[in-house]
Every structure is written in C-alpha cells, then in structure tokens.
C-alpha cells in the first residue's frame, strides 16, 4: 500500500510530491536493512513511540520494502503506453482517475514478477528480526542449533527448506496469477 502510494507520488504532476517520493526511495533503498531496523528500534522510542519488538520489526520491514515496491510499481506504470494516459486526460479524467481506472490496471500485469521478487526478499529479510529477539524462522533455527549443537547442519538445512517452502509457494502463486491475468486479457 505504502509502496503504491509512493509510486503515485513519483509519477504525479506535482513536483514537490515527486521529489519527496524520490528522496524517500533513494534514501531508504540505499540504506542497509539492518540500519533501518536499528533506526526503528532505537530512535522511535526516543520520541516516545514504543511498540513490541515484533511491531517494530513489521514497521522496519514495511519502511524498507515500500521503497522496493514503489520502484516495481513505477516501472510497471512506465511500461504502460503513454498514449493511454494521454487519452484518459483528453477525456477529462483527473490524474487520480487516470491512474486508478486506466494506468494501474494495465500496470498490474507488468508488475507481478518484480513484485514477487520484492515479497520474496521481504520473507528472507525477515530473518534480521531474529537479531532483535522476534520469533521467526532464523531465530528458531538459532535456538535449535544452540539446543542441539550436534545436529547443526540438519537444523540449518531445515531452516533453508523452511524459507524455500515459503518463497517457492509464493513463486507458484505468482505464476498462477500471471496466467489468470493473461487469460483475462
């Protein structure tokens, strides 16, 4: 959601909005995720924003991946022929109607695979939350390896398989969606 909003800003006719969107994306995308995590976990409490570590992890992951989603959506939007938006504007549709009714529905097709990569990265990047004691796959694997030092390799492999199950299921889902959309075309 945040990513689409950002993408809207980056293609909007209002220059300050465009600059803001670009500034956000370039700042966040070029910051290591770990730094974003540290920022959220240690800086937000300073301004009296206090949540559980789990919520913090969700916030950090959202901030970071919104920038990536934005870029995926924006490239999808740019992939739609400019004539489509021109025709929409010539009819008298407003900028937001033009985006909502004409451009985004056509951009969706171009966006599915790049968006998939972003979500897959999101799943894998969630492992960083382990460092902050959030209950997730890598954290569980860590605890299991500490508890069973003899079977480190087996547990690690189990962890890898766990991630693979999630990401491969996602990839399958995406291919299915893409095919469904291609059929509807």
């Amino acid at each position, binding site marked *: 959601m945040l990513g689409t909003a950002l993408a809207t800003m980056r293609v909007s006719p209002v220059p300050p909005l465009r600059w803001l969107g670009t500034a956000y994306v370039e700042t966040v995308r070029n910051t290591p995720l770990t730094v974003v995590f540290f920022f959220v976990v240690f800086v937000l409490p300073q301004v009296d924003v206090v949540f559980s570590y789990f919520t913090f992890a969700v916030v950090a992951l959202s901030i970071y991946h919104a920038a990536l989603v934005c870029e995926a959506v924006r490239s999808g939007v740019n992939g739609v*022929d400019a004539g489509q938006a021109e*025709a929409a504007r*010539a009819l008298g*549709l407003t900028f937001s109607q033009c985006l909502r*009714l004409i451009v985004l529905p056509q951009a969706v097709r171009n966006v599915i695979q790049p968006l998939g990569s972003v979500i897959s990265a999101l799943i894998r990047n969630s492992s960083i939350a382990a460092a902050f004691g959030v209950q997730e796959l890598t954290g569980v694997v860590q605890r299991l390896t500490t508890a069973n030092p003899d079977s480190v390799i087996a547990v690690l492999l189990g962890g890898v398989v766990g991630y693979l199950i999630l990401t491969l299921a996602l990839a399958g889902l995406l291919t299915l969606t893409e095919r469904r959309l291609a059929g509807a*075309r």
Partner: protein
Amino acid sequence: MPLVALEGVGKSFGDNRVLTDIDLTVESGEVVVVIGPSGSGKSTLCRCVNRLETIDTGRILFEDKPLPAEGRELARMRSRVGMVFQSFNLFAHRTVLDNLTIGPMKVLGQKRPQAEARARELLDRVGIADKADRLPRQLSGGQQQRAAIARALAMDPVLMLFDEPTSALDPEMISEVLDVMRSLASTGMTMIVVTHEMGFARSAADRVAFMADGRILEISPPDTFFDAPESERARDFLARILRH
C-alpha cells in the same frame, strides 16, 4: 466570439523551436484543416489546444477564457474537447463499449444505462455496432480509429481535435475513417484536423492552414489554397505531394 483563439503562441522543446508566433482563430462550426511537411509543428499545435502540451509564450483562449492550469478546471475543459490520436489510444484493457462509457460515467456522472444507450447509438453511427463487446486489439486499425472517434463524441464535445487520425492506417482503411469525419463535419461540429489527406482538406475544410518550420504561412479557403497558394513553401509542398 471565436471558440478557440491562439495568440502569438510559441513553444520550444529544449533548443528546438517548434512553434513560432502562431495566430489562429476557429469559429464555432468551422472545420480548420492544418497541413504541412513533417516536423512543421502541426501536431504540437493541435496538442496545445487541450493543453496536452504547454506553451512557452502567447496565450490560448477557449470560449474567451485562457486555458486553465493542470487540475480540475482543465479536466472540465478537456471533457468538452474531443481528441482523436494518430495511434488511436483506446484503453487496451477495456471493451469498446467501456471505452465509450468511461468518460460519460466518470467525468459527466451519467448512469450506466444512459451512457450505454448513447454509446451503442454512436457505435452504430460510425458503423461498428457489432464490435461493442470486443477488446480494442480485436479490431482493425480503421475500426479502432472509428471507435476512438465515437469515444470522443460520447462526451458531447463542442470541439474535436484530430491529430493525424489516418497516418497509422493502411490505405484501404483510410477512407472509412475519413467518411466518418466528413459526415461529422457536415453536422456542424467544430473541428481542427491535422492531416496529410489533401482530398479531405479540399472537400471538408472551411479553411486550410499551411504550416512550415513552426509557423502558419497561409490560411485560406481550400479552393484558394490548392489552386493559387500564395507562399513559395506551399507551392513547393503541393507540387511535391500532388505530383504522383
């Protein structure tokens, strides 16, 4: 009061000057055909009228008021000006019927039954009533362009802009589009038509504007223009295209 007036309009793309000191008025009910060699700025001129291109100098009046800046008011102005593009630009993900109803429903606030009835009437008028439920890419170029004209007409515009409407069409489809345009002109629609079709200019235009190098060199009734062009450039141009 002219419907559209361009006064001293100038525009550049970077260092490239595309329009210089353009003065042009179009009266209600008039058909003005703009012709000239490629790169003479005629397409840009057409696109400036509904502000798909902005201008650098001069001003453009629509119904005596300067074109509004980007926003709701400009959208409202555009809703009264139909535009037909060289590349049709039908909404690719919507059926022909939806292409015709989206403007009336979303911009004019019409209800679906009313918008659809009017859309079917217009499709019938341009001769593709049977294509209502097809997607644009299932139509031939000529059919798509006729659908695009119908889409513009669905807004009940007071002015129609045609930006080289037949330049992307195979020869055998050009006449079906020109026929629709000619019958539209005969109903009294105000039209600005950028085209290379000299036959259309001669038979349908009230006035022909000849452009070269970003300037309007001549504006005259078609008979005067084609039989006795004033400028050297126009004589050259006509000699070259009418030779074969």
